[in-house]
């Protein structure tokens, strides 16, 4: 099976409209929850049963996260959606916003109901104007239909939902940087603890979930946590969106069961581009360690299987590389990315990403020296685990894994001052 959760409406004409969404059962779960006064506790239990794990990359169980909210404490609380999609290789949330925005809205209203938040914000990256416009139009439709705002469907439950537009900063995908950004500040991550559930947006209890996680909620509660669990694995329920990009014939977003063999997913994406062989795969977005192609062919798309290959599922962003790929060149580009995007707050990341970028660049340019490989390894090691947020680790992990699997290519670059492979790109 495929396309049963976030992409379940994509085949409908104008799938982003309220009428299309409602024609396929949209907002029925919300109506049921409000009219039958289902309790947040029982809803959260069902989400725990589904074993929905956070789709933004960390994989933390969503139901458990919601249960951390001090819902009985008085005062304002917030639900925040992280649509600041920017991890290289990742482009699934964009399509949820464009093609199924009402399901995200319904998910956020239900989340607000479950954690006792009367206000929500959806943080959409600034470049996503078209998805933002779609989401805004959907908000207007939902408000006009009495599905969003004060006294939703006469239930007495109030929920206000707004977009917040970013302005270009990868680090704002980190949840506390994102909160600072909504507060109108530089998007620099906060030290944790305190965690957002205690001290979040404007210092109030806040839950932050990824777009895909929140958009999955209405389907989970409509069909039951057990149903969702059974679509995937006991360790991670559901179908999940995988963005397959790079050297494949049919790049695209594929919503398939958690645990699908990578080889099947690759086949859905049309296989490696014609006339070429699989060389390497980054399975979960640019931050996750690279895996050699032959090893990847034995891996399934779930947390445990990918971990056994030394990498991570991340946000399900599968970047496929064929034999024309010069690995030092790819790592050089990724190292530059983290250097560009480091917020500058922690010294190991601010300085270390600069070192990684400059040293990979000189290897790529044919002016590297023999000691550079050890230097890269050492700088990466000095970033790992020494920073406030995960961006430092995200910069270090590709370096470690590229050197582990493709050290010979780096050595070749240094010795011969050119690439080991021929590329047509």
């Amino acid at each position: 099976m495929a396309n049963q959760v976030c992409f379940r409406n994509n085949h409908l004409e104008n799938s982003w409209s309220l009428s299309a969404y409602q024609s396929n059962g949209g907002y029925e779960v919300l109506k049921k929850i409000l009219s039958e006064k289902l309790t947040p506790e029982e809803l959260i239990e069902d989400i725990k049963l589904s074993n929905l794990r956070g789709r933004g990359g960390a994989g933390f169980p969503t139901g458990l996260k919601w249960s951390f909210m001090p819902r009985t404490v008085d005062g304002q609380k917030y639900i925040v959606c992280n649509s600041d999609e920017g991890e290289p290789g990742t482009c699934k949330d964009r399509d949820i916003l464009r093609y199924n925005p009402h399901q995200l809205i319904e998910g956020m209203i239900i989340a607000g109901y479950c954690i006792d938040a009367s206000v929500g914000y959806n943080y959409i990256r600034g470049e996503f104007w078209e998805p933002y416009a779609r989401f805004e139009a959907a908000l207007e439709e939902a408000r006009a239909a009495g599905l969003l705002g004060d006294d939703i469907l006469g239930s007495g439950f109030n929920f206000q939902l707004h977009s917040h537009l970013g302005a270009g900063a990868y680090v704002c995908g980190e949840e506390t940087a994102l909160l600072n950004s909504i507060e109108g500040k530089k998007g620099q991550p906060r030290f944790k603890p305190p965690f957002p559930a205690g001290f979040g947006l404007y210092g109030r209890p806040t839950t932050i979930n990824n777009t895909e996680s929140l958009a999955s909620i209405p389907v989970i509660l409509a069909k039951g946590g057990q149903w969702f669990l059974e679509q995937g694995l006991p360790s991670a329920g559901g179908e999940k969106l995988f963005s397959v990009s790079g050297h494949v014939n049919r790049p695209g977003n594929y919503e398939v069961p958690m645990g699908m063999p990578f080889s099947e997913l690759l086949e859905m994406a049309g296989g490696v581009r014609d006339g070429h062989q699989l060389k390497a795969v980054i399975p979960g977005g640019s931050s996750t360690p690279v895996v050699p192609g032959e090893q990847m062919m034995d891996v399934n798309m779930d947390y445990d299987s990918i971990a056994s290959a030394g990498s991570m599922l991340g946000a399900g962003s599968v970047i496929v590389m064929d034999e024309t790929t010069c690995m030092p060149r790819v790592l050089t580009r990724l190292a530059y990315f983290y250097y560009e995007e480091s917020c500058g707050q922690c010294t190991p990341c601010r300085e270390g990403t600069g070192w990684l970028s400059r040293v990979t660049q000189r290897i790529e340019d044919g002016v590297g020296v023999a000691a550079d490989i050890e230097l890269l390894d050492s700088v990466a090691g000095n970033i790992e685990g020494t920073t406030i947020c995960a961006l430092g680790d995200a910069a270090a992990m590709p370096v470690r894994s590229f050197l582990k699997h493709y050290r010979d290519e780096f050595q070749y670059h240094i010795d011969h001052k050119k690439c080991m492979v021929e590329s047509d790109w």
Partner: protein
Amino acid sequence: MSMISDSARSDIENWVDKYPAEEKQSAVMAALRIVQDENSGSLTTELMNEVATLLEMPEIAVYEVATFYSMYELKLVGRHKICVCTNISCMLNNSKAVVDKLEDKLGVKLGETTADGEFTLKEVECLGACVNAPVVQVGENYYEHLNPAINPDKIDQLLAELRGES
């Protein structure tokens, strides 16, 4: 005299209304975007100071935001800012050829503006449309599948479309 138009002010007010009354600063990102759009795509110190006054925040706090996020421009840019993604998925799909062709057609390098002030070419990080690589962003729009080896005319069409708006 104010440099921010009444319509921009009302647009900013709409954003202010989304946040708690005492949290006007939350609208600073939207405000900077709105006044930048109105000022041909870039910000000035005077505009940032006006935003600070409008949102009752220290000027330095506005500068911090304006310098932190990559979509704000503190120098003049062309009427069309072509943002080219060269990150991994675009790179694997020949973004280098996209850059080469745009540089060739426009006669400028990445980071530069054409002499007639029409185009600025800017390298950007991942735009989040990786399955449609290579991708560029111009204003509110994305232009996708631009690999000249596969779609030889697309970049010419894009430039013609943008020039047609002149």
